[in-house]
C-alpha cells in the first residue's frame, strides 16, 4: 500500500509542475488573449510594430520605408517580430495578427519562465513561477501598456535558451550548444537590446551557475577562495566559453548584419529625448509610479525574500549581481549611480525601465519559491504552528485579493491615467487621402498619440512625422529633444519651436495637410498660414496650406541587394530552424530527467524575512489601492484656501465646469446656469480655450480664519507661447470647507437686439472631367494676379529680414505663398518662408505687410550674399480673407523708440473674434517698411461687443539698416515682376510711423476663415 502511495505521490510531484504550467498557459490565453485586443489601441508601441509589420507585408525585400520622416530604413530595427506579424496578416487583419502573434509569444514566454525556473528550483516551484508570469505586473505593463512585442519575444526565447546553455556547460554535449544557439538566434532576430544586455545579465550568470554546479567542490569554499577557484574553473573551460562566445557573436552579427551595418554607417546622432524612466522618481513621482512602482510592485513587496534567497547560495552569485544592478539601473535618475555606471551617453539613450523589467524576470523563480512556500511549504507551516490555519488562510486570501485588485488597476491604468487620446476612426482620413490625389503631398497629425502609426499603417500617404525616433535623420527633428511633432505640446518650447519650423517651412517637405485632433494647435496653424478645409465625420479638422509643391522623388539610401535578401530571409529562417530543431530535439535527444540541478526546494527563511515577506505584500498593495481610491474619491479638495484654488483651476484646466462651479459659495442667487452664462461672456480666446495650465502659485493674504483673499499667479502654455495671468480671488470658509466668492460681474450689453452682416463668400468651382486622367487642361484655373508694392532687406544687429507689402490685384480672394531665396557666393541657395507676420489670404484688392526672417548677420556675411529673390505663388482662396471687426487705435510715443498702441475692436461680425490680433508695420517717412509684427490678444470678443487692449512696440528705424546693395528679384507665379515704387504713407506718418491691419482668428464659422 505504501509503495502505491509513494508512486502516486511521485507521479503527482512530477506532473504537478507541468499541470501548473498548463494552468498558467490556459489562464494567460483566457486573460491576455481576450483583453489584448481592447488594450492594444491604448499602448505606446503596438501601433509602431504594426506599422513595421505592414511595411513587410507590402515590401518584404525592400527596407526603404518612405512614409515616415521623408524616408528611413527598416533595417534600423530587428525584423523577425514584424515579419511574423506581416505573415499572419496575410490571413487576418493586422490588429488581430498582432494579438495572435503576441499571445503566442506570451505562451512561449511562460514556457521559458518555467524552464528558466527549473534551473533554480523544482518543477512545482517552476509551475508557480509560470502562473506568476501570467499576473506579474511588469509583464502586464509590458504587454498591455507598452505593447512591446519584440521585448517579450526576445525575453521568451532568451529564457528558453538558458536551460540548453546550462546543460551544455554541465554535460558538455554538443546538442545543447546547438539548441542554445538556435533559440538565441531567434532572440537576436527579434530584439537586439535584449540580446545585447541578455549576454550580460542572463547568459553570464547561467554560465557561472553551470560551472559551479559542474564543480560541486566549489560550493563549500570561503567566498574569497570561491572567487579564485571560479576564475580557475572558468579558465579551464575556456574552450567551451570561447566556442559559445564566438558562435554567439557570429550569429548576432550575421543574422541581423544589415542592422549593424546601418548602425555603423548611419549612427544615431540626435539630441537625447527626455524619457520618464530617467527621471528622479522621488521628484517626479508620476514617472516613478509608471516606470518603477507598478512594474516592480511584487518585487518590492517580496524583496526581503528575494534578497535572502538570491544571496543564499554561491551558484546564484551571478544572478544576485545581475538582479541588483538591474534593480538599480531601473531606478533611473533617482540616484546618480546608473548615470555613473552607464556613462552619460548610454544613460541618455537607453530607456531604463527595461532594466526593471529584467530585474523582475530574474526575481520570478525566487518569488515563486517564497509564494510556493507561503501557500504549501515551510512558511505556511510556520504560520499555522505559530498562530493557526485560519490566520494563514486570511493572510493568504487578503494578500491574493489585494494583488488581484492591483492587477485589475493596471489593466485599467489607461482609464485612470489616460495615456493616449481616445480612439480615432481612421476611415474618414483614409478617404480624404485617397481622393483628389491628396496623397501626392505629405500630411501631419496633431493630437493623435501613437494612433498616428495606425493611420500610417493603413495608407500609402507619407507624413513628415513618425513614431520611431531612432530612424529620424531630418536635422529639424534630430537637433531638438522632441519625440514626435504630433505631441509637440508635451515637449515644451522645444517641441512647439520644432513644430513651428515644419509648419512654416512646409514647402520644403511638401507638407500640405494637417489632421488636427487637438485645437490647442489651431492658433499656431492659423497664424502660420494654414486654412481649415473640412471637418471630417470623425471630428478631425483638416488644415491645408496653399501653393505647396507635390512630393519630389527622393533617392532612397543605397543598400546592397544582397543585404536586402539577407534581411528578408535570415531572421525568419532562424525561427524556422529553431522550430525544426526543437522538434528533432524533443523526439530524439530530450532526456527524461535532464536537469542535474541541486535546487533548494525545502528553503527555510529566517523569522525576520518570513514576517516581512509575508506581511509586506498585503500592506503594500492595500496601501497602494487605498491611496488610489482616496485620490479618486475621498480627497479633500477644499480643506485649505490653497487647495481650493489649486483644485478649482485644475477643474477649469480640464474644462470640468460643473465641478469648478462647486467651488463657489453655495447660494440660491448664484446658480450653475448663471456661472456658465457669466463665463461665456468673458471666456474664449487664446486663454483658456487654446491653452493648458503650465504652473500656478497661490498667495493667500490676511489672517482671518474664515475669509481670505488669494492672489493666483498662473502660467499657461499656448501654441503661440506662454501666457501669464494674475487673478485675485476672495475665499470664504463655510462648514470646514473653503469656497470662492463669486466676483461682481457687469457685462457689456450691446445696443442691438440682433446684428447682421453681409459677407461676400467665394467658392472655387470644380470642372474636372471625370476620367482616368488626373486633370484635363480645361480644368486649370488661372493663377490670380498679385503685385509687390515694396521689398526691403533690413538688418538689425544680428537679425536680418526681408520686409515688404504685397497686393492682391485680382477680383477674387487670393492665398499667397512667399519664399525668399538667398544666393550665396559659394553657389549655395537658402530658402526662407514667412512666419506669422503676414496675411496669407487677402480679399480682392487687399494688401498685406510681410516680414521673412533670414539667417543671422555673422552667417550671412561669412557666406557672402550674391543676390536675393522673393517668390510669390498665388492661388484662389475660399476662406481666411476676412480679418476682423471694426478696429480703432491711437498710437502714442513713450520714447523716441518705444510706442504704445491702445487698440479697440468692435466686433460687428456674426462670429466671435476668437483671437483678436494686429498686424503692425513700422514705416519711415518715405513709406519703407522696416519691420512687421503680429500681436495677439488672449481674450475673445463676442459679436456686437467691444474689446480693448494695449500693445508696446519697439521701433528699429534709426538703429537698423535698410540694405540696398544686393539686387532683389521679385517673381509672381514664376514670372519676373517689377516692384512698384514705394510711396509715403500719410496715415502712418501721422501715427509715429505705424500702420495697423486687423488680423484675427475666428474659430466658429470655418467658411469665413
Amino acid at each position, binding site marked *: 500500500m505504501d509503495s502505491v502511495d509513494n508512486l502516486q505521490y511521485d507521479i503527482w510531484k512530477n506532473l504537478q509542475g507541468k499541470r501548473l504550467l498548463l494552468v498558467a498557459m490556459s489562464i494567460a490565453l483566457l486573460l491576455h488573449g481576450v483583453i489584448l485586443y481592447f488594450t492594444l489601441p491604448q499602448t505606446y508601441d503596438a501601433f509602431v510594430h504594426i506599422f513595421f509589420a505592414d511595411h513587410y507585408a507590402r515590401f518584404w525585400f525592400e527596407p526603404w520605408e518612405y512614409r515616415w520622416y521623408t524616408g528611413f530604413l527598416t533595417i534600423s530595427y530587428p525584423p523577425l517580430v514584424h515579419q511574423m506579424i506581416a505573415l499572419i496578416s496575410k490571413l487576418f487583419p493586422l490588429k488581430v495578427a498582432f494579438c495572435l502573434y503576441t499571445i503566442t509569444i506570451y505562451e512561449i514566454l511562460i514556457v521559458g519562465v518555467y524552464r528558466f525556473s527549473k534551473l533554480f528550483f523544482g518543477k512545482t516551484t517552476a509551475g508557480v513561477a509560470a502562473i506568476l508570469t501570467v499576473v506579474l505586473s511588469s509583464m502586464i505593463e509590458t504587454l498591455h501598456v507598452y505593447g512591446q512585442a519584440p521585448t517579450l519575444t526576445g525575453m521568451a526565447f532568451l529564457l528558453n535558451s538558458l536551460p540548453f546553455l546550462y546543460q551544455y556547460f554541465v554535460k558538455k554535449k554538443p546538442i545543447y550548444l546547438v539548441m542554445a544557439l538556435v533559440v538565441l538566434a531567434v532572440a537576436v532576430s527579434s530584439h537586439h537590446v535584449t540580446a545585447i544586455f541578455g549576454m550580460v545579465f542572463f547568459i553570464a550568470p547561467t554560465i557561472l551557475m553551470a560551472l559551479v554546479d559542474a564543480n560541486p567542490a566549489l560550493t563549500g569554499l570561503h567566498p574569497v577562495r570561491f572567487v579564485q577557484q571560479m576564475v580557475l574553473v572558468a579558465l579551464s573551460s575556456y574552450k567551451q566559453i570561447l566556442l559559445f562566445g564566438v558562435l554567439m557573436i557570429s550569429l548576432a552579427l550575421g543574422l541581423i548584419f544589415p542592422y549593424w551595418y546601418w548602425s555603423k554607417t548611419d549612427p544615431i546622432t540626435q539630441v537625447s529625448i527626455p524619457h520618464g524612466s530617467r527621471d528622479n522618481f522621488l521628484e517626479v513621482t508620476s514617472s516613478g509610479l509608471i516606470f518603477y512602482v507598478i512594474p516592480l510592485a511584487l518585487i518590492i513587496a517580496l524583496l526581503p525574500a528575494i534578497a535572502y534567497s538570491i544571496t543564499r547560495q554561491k551558484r546564484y552569485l551571478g544572478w544576485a549581481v545581475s538582479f541588483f544592478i538591474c534593480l538599480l539601473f531601473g531606478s533611473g535618475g533617482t540616484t546618480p549611480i546608473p548615470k555613473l555606471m552607464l556613462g552619460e551617453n548610454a544613460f541618455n539613450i537607453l530607456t531604463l525601465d527595461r532594466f526593471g523589467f529584467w530585474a523582475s524576470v530574474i526575481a520570478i523563480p525566487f518569488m515563486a519559491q517564497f509564494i510556493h512556500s507561503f501557500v504549501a511549504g515551510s512558511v505556511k507551516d510556520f504560520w499555522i504552528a505559530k498562530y493557526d490555519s485560519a490566520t494563514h488562510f486570511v493572510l493568504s486570501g487578503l494578500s491574493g485579493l489585494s494583488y488581484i485588485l492591483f492587477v485589475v488597476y493596471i489593466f485599467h491604468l489607461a482609464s485612470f491615467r489616460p495615456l493616449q487620446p481616445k480612439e480615432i476612426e481612421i476611415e474618414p482620413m483614409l478617404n480624404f487621402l485617397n481622393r483628389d490625389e491628396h496623397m501626392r503631398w505629405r500630411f501631419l497629425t496633431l493630437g493623435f498619440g501613437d494612433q498616428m502609426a495606425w493611420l500610417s499603417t493603413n495608407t500609402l500617404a507619407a507624413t513628415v512625422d513618425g513614431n520611431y525616433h531612432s530612424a529620424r535623420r531630418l536635422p529639424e527633428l534630430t537637433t531638438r529633444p522632441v519625440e514626435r511633432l504630433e505631441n509637440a505640446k508635451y515637449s515644451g518650447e522645444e517641441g512647439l519651436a520644432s513644430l513651428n519650423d515644419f509648419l512654416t517651412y512646409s514647402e520644403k517637405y511638401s507638407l500640405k495637410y494637417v489632421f488636427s485632433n487637438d485645437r490647442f494647435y489651431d492658433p499656431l496653424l492659423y497664424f502660420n498660414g494654414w486654412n481649415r478645409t473640412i471637418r471630417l465625420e470623425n471630428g478631425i479638422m483638416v488644415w491645408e496650406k496653399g501653393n505647396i509643391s507635390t512630393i519630389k522623388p527622393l533617392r532612397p539610401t543605397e543598400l546592397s541587394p544582397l543585404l536586402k535578401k539577407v534581411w528578408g530571409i535570415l531572421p525568419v529562417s532562424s525561427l524556422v530552424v529553431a522550430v525544426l530543431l526543437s522538434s528533432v530535439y524533443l523526439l530524439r535527444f530530450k532526456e527524461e530527467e535532464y536537469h542535474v540541478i541541486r535546487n533548494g526546494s525545502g528553503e527555510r527563511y529566517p523569522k525576520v524575512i518570513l514576517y516581512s515577506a509575508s506581511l509586506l505584500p498585503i500592506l503594500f498593495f492595500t496601501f497602494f489601492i487605498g491611496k488610489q481610491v482616496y485620490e479618486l474619491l475621498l480627497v479633500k479638495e477644499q480643506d485649505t484656501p490653497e487647495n481650493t484654488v489649486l483644485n478649482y483651476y485644475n477643474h477649469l484646466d480640464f474644462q470640468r465646469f460643473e465641478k469648478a462651479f462647486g467651488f463657489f459659495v453655495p447660494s440660491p442667487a448664484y446658480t450653475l446656469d448663471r456661472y456658465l452664462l457669466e463665463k461665456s461672456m468673458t471666456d474664449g480666446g487664446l486663454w483658456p480655450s487654446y491653452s493648458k495650465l503650465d504652473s500656478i502659485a497661490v498667495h493667500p493674504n490676511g489672517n482671518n480664519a474664515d475669509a481670505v483673499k488669494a492672489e493666483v499667479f498662473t502660467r499657461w502654455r499656448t501654441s503661440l507661447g506662454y501666457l501669464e495671468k494674475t487673478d485675485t480671488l476672495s475665499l470664504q470658509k463655510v462648514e470646514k470647507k473653503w469656497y470662492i466668492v463669486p466676483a461682481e460681474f457687469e457685462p457689456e450689453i450691446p445696443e442691438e437686439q440682433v446684428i447682421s452682416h453681409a459677407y461676400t463668400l467665394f467658392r472655387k468651382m470644380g470642372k474636372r472631367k471625370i476620367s482616368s486622367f488626373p486633370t484635363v487642361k480645361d480644368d486649370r484655373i488661372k493663377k490670380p494676379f498679385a503685385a509687390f508694392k515694396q521689398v526691403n532687406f533690413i538688418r538689425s544687429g544680428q537679425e536680418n529680414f526681408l520686409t515688404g507689402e504685397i497686393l492682391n490685384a485680382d477680383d477674387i480672394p487670393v492665398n499667397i505663398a512667399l519664399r525668399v531665396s538667398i544666393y550665396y557666393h559659394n553657389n549655395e541657395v537658402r530658402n526662407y518662408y514667412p512666419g506669422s507676420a503676414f496675411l496669407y489670404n487677402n480679399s480682392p484688392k487687399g494688401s498685406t505687410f510681410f516680414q521673412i526672417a533670414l539667417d543671422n548677420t555673422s552667417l550671412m556675411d561669412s557666406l557672402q550674399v550674391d543676390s536675393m529673390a522673393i517668390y510669390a505663388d498665388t492661388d484662389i482662396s475660399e476662406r481666411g480673407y476676412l480679418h476682423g471687426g*471694426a478696429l480703432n487705435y491711437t498710437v502714442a510715443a513713450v520714447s523716441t523708440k518705444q510706442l504704445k498702441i491702445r487698440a479697440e475692436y468692435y466686433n460687428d461680425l456674426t462670429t466671435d473674434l476668437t483671437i483678436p490680433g494686429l498686424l503692425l508695420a513700422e514705416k519711415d517717412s518715405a513709406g519703407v517698411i522696416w519691420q512687421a509684427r503680429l500681436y495677439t490678444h488672449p481674450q475673445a470678443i463676442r459679436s456686437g461687443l467691444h474689446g480693448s487692449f494695449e500693445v508696446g512696440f519697439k521701433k528699429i528705424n534709426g538703429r537698423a539698416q535698410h540694405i540696398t546693395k544686393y539686387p532683389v528679384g521679385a517673381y509672381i507665379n514664376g514670372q519676373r515682376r517689377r516692384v512698384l515704387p514705394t510711396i509715403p504713407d500719410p496715415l502712418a506718418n501721422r501715427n509715429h510711423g505705424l500702420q495697423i491691419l486687423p488680423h484675427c482668428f475666428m474659430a466658429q464659422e470655418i467658411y469665413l476663415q
Partner: protein
Amino acid sequence: MKTHLLYVPLLLMTWACSQVPIEKPVLVSKSEIVSIPADTLSFNTSHSEWEAMLYTHIQPLKMRTHQANGRLMVFLLPGQGGILEGPARLELATGNRHFYYPVTVRNSVVKTGSMKDYRSPKTVNPDSALAQQRIVHIIDPARNLLELPGKGYFLEQELTLDPTVAVYRANADKPLTAYYVEPGSCVNVPVQAGYKKGNNSFEVVVGPLIDRHGNTVADGTLVTLTLRSGGKVWHLEENLQNGLVSRTLPAQKFIGFDVQANVQDRFSKTLKLSI
C-alpha cells in the same frame, strides 16, 4: 519497384519539356492598309485555336476569328465609335506563342466630328489686355483629327474681346469651353456721407465703383474706410457688393471725424462727418 518509380518523374519532366514547333501563319491579304469594319485578314496556317488582338496607339481590341481548311480569317471589328487610325499591330496568339503583323488601320465609315475651340487665356482682365488666342480643330468620336473645310487641321486666331464683363462660351452647349471677362480696377472712389436724423447716424456710401470700361468692380473687393479724429483712427474693412459699400456710423461716436475710403491704391476725397 522503387527504382522504377524514380523513372516516372524523369519521364514526366522530359515530356513536359518537349514542344511542338508552330509555324508563323502567312498573311494572304495583299494590302497592309485595312479598313475597319469592312476588311478581313486571311492567313494560311496548319495550327488551330488562334486568338487575334489588334493593338492601336491607345487600345488593344480583341478580333473575331474563324478557321477552316487551313485558313484563318480575322474579322476586323471596330471599337465603340470607330478606331483610332494609323499604324497598328495585329497579334496572333496560340498558347504562349505570339506573332505580330504591322498594319495600317482606317475607319471605313468617316463619322461626323465635333469642333474643339480652345481659348487662352480663359480669364481676361481688362486692366492688362483683352487679347485672346483661339485654336480650333475637329475631332471624330474615335479621337481622329478631321480636316477643317479648306483650312488644314488647325485654325489659330488672335482675338480682341469685348470689354463687357460676362461669362462667354466658345461652344454654346459646352460649359467647359467658357471664358471670362472680369472687371478691372476702379478708376476713382466716390464717397458720400449723410446724416440720418431718425437713428442719429451717418450713412457713408462708397461707390458705385466702375472700371475704365464702365464695368462694375467685382463683388468682394476690399474697401477700407479710415476715420480720423485727433490721434484716434478707425480702420473699417468692407467688401464691395454690386459696386457699393455702405456703412452706418452712430453719430454720437463719429461726429467730427474725417472719413476717407480707399481701394487698392486709389483714395477718395476726405469728408468730415457733421450734422
